[in-house]
């Protein structure tokens, strides 16, 4: 009898617990919001995202707790996906299934981002992508739980190519990394150049990755184009820039970096990069707000933030605010809240998330300073132009995303 009693009590307890947790589910599971940072800690993108992105996330969480004093707890987990889609996929699945992570964030490199987006959709969680570059994220592969936050190849290629062509750089030659990503950059830029009255004289596809660019640069030189567009990224871009200076190609012909970060400029130095145009979503020295935040970041990281790291902060903060406002961590409700609320912080003014998951905000056309113009560490850019949000990103009318109603 006693035995049965005990069993009954246990059963009652279990039921009560189930009901309780069920009730909690409607609000915030486990009364904890868990933010997962899945990034490249060791590979090609570790300087532009990496530990800096983890720091930015922690800052966002700390600031959120300080400003909102939420009733729920906020935790962070982070992992190195080593740029491998299968590791990213396993980790994200494990986070969602076993550790109750509510959102997987950062996700630099498109292959890992695409993999995690799909899992987020399947498990009904949110994916916040600050690092990856490719446009399929908000086109063919788009879904309703994903936000592409900071930038994409369209915005960068478009911004740079348009501004440079309008300022008189009418003839172009492209140095293109020979894979889907480089070709997309070239295609997008070519369209912009022609639309603005410019002409593309030719292009050369170089293997990826390559280290010696002299052959390709000589071909670009022979073309006589005013502008050499670098449709590549990372070490390829830095090597091409360095060698262009070496062969005396710059400054006779100008380079336009179609995918460049401040970490690249920092790595190559102003001597070789001076005068280059590039598009960025964020520059630390833009105004008092950006400087204040970047200073905090710099104190811990000893580097100024890249746009990816700044965007990471902004996206996590926006997410946490939306969770609080919606009173739940349910992906659909949080997404609705996030899309409904404009984003206003040091990173974005009146940023908004479109139905295809694209966060649109003002972008900036920057020109790299001459060494003599740089007055203090990390004083690298002249901001030449603000590209309004509506013009910066791919218009919805061109979208190939199934969520966009036409």
């Amino acid at each position, binding site marked *: 009898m006693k035995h049965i009693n005990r069993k009954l009590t246990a059963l009652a307890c279990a039921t009560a617990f189930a009901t309780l947790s069920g009730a909690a589910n409607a609000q915030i599971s486990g009364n904890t919001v868990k933010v997962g940072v899945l990034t490249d800690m*060791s*590979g*090609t*993108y*570790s*300087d*532009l995202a990496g530990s800096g992105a983890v720091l930015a996330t922690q800052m966002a969480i700390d600031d959120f707790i300080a400003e909102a004093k939420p009733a729920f707890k906020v935790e962070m987990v982070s992992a190195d996906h080593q740029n491998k889609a299968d590791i990213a996929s396993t980790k994200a699945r494990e986070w969602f299934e076993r550790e109750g992570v509510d959102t997987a964030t950062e996700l630099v490199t498109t292959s890992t981002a695409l993999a995690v987006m799909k899992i987020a959709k399947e498990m009904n969680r949110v994916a916040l992508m600050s690092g990856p570059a490719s446009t399929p994220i908000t086109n063919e592969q788009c879904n309703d739980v994903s936000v592409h936050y900071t930038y994409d190849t369209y915005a960068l290629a478009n911004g740079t190519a348009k501004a440079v062509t309008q300022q008189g750089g009418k003839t172009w030659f492209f140095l293109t990394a*020979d894979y889907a990503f480089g070709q997309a950059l070239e295609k997008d830029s070519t369209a912009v150049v022609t639309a603005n009255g410019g002409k593309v004289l030719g292009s*050369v*596809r*170089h*293997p990826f*990755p*390559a*280290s*010696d660019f*002299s*052959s*390709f640069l*000589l*071909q670009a030189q*022979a073309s006589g184009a005013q502008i050499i567009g670098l449709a590549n990224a*990372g*070490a390829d871009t*830095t*090597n091409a820039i*360095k*060698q262009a200076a*070496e*062969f*005396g190609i710059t400054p006779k012909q100008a380079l336009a970096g179609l995918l460049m970060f401040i*970490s*690249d400029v*920092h*790595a*190559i*130095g102003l*001597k*070789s990069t001076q005068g280059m145009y590039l598009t960025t979503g964020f520059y630390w020295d833009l105004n008092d707000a950006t400087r204040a935040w970047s200073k905090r970041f710099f104190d811990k990281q000893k580097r100024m933030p890249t746009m990816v790291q700044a965007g990471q902060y902004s996206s996590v903060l926006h997410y946490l605010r939306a969770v609080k406002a919606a009173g739940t961590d349910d992906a659909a409700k949080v997404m609705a809240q996030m899309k409904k609320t404009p984003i206003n912080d040091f990173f974005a003014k009146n940023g908004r998330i479109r139905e295809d998951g694209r966060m649109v905000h003002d972008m900036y056309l920057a020109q790299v300073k001459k060494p003599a113009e740089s007055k203090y560490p990390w004083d690298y850019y002249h901001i030449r132009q603000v590209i309004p949000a509506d013009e910066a990103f791919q218009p919805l009318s061109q979208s190939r995303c199934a969520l966009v109603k036409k």
Partner: protein
Amino acid sequence: MEIFGVPSALLGSQLLVGLINGSFYAVLSLGLAIIFGLLNIINFAHGAQYMMGAFVAWIALTKFGINYWAALLLSPVVIGALGVVLERTMLRRLYKLDHLYGLLLTFGLALIFEGFFRDQYGISGQPYEVPELLQGGVSLGFMFLPIYRGWVVVAALVVCFGTWFMIEKTKLGAYLRAGTENPQIVQALGINVPLLITFTYGYGVALAAFAGVLAAPIYQVNPLMGSNLIIVVFAVVVIGGMGSIMGSILTGLGLGLIEGLTRVFYPEGSAVVVFFIMVIVLLVRPAGLFGRA
């Protein structure tokens, strides 16, 4: 004037650029060939040692103000010394075993080196200025040649042929060659073969570091700069015939030229052409162009 629709000036400049790249291949594959010849070890860490050579030059310059010319000597000595330590403490234990263990050990070492530098210096790499004496360039009529690139070819050729001369024409080289053929007899003649082996490994590694210093002003000094290059250099060594000194030098230069031509006529294929040639050579001459079957 045009050749196959390509202006001859462009063709000439591409060949010259190919020769420059070939110089790097030659120095690197020469180091590999020497190590393989005497130790029978494929030094997978060669790319990492090349990278470390560049980094030593960079550290010397930024931390200690040691200039390029001193680094050109210092870096091979430092990395060569590290090689000596590796040989004494690790590689030495593997000589009696299957050669494959040497390959695996050096592969592990390459991972450690690259991982370490990546953690310390980040992935974007560090800039290294061309030394003042070699800045600028000359116009050759058909192209603008940076003086530094010209220097690379000269320095690489001098080192390569100097090494060849030392091995083929000097007494030390004779011991080396004899040690390769028959270590027991050479040992019996009173020559310290283990020391010879240690020295050889150190020298091969030093060559890699030398190439690294040469490369520093051209490429970004980057923790992964040797990681993909090493695979190409492997192919060069296989094509040349492993262990052949002159073979590795000539093949290195030749492949640079062929790669240069590919970059004009079919740029997309320029990264694969080396492997393509390797397959053909192996079908026709399994021992490589200069190797003994």
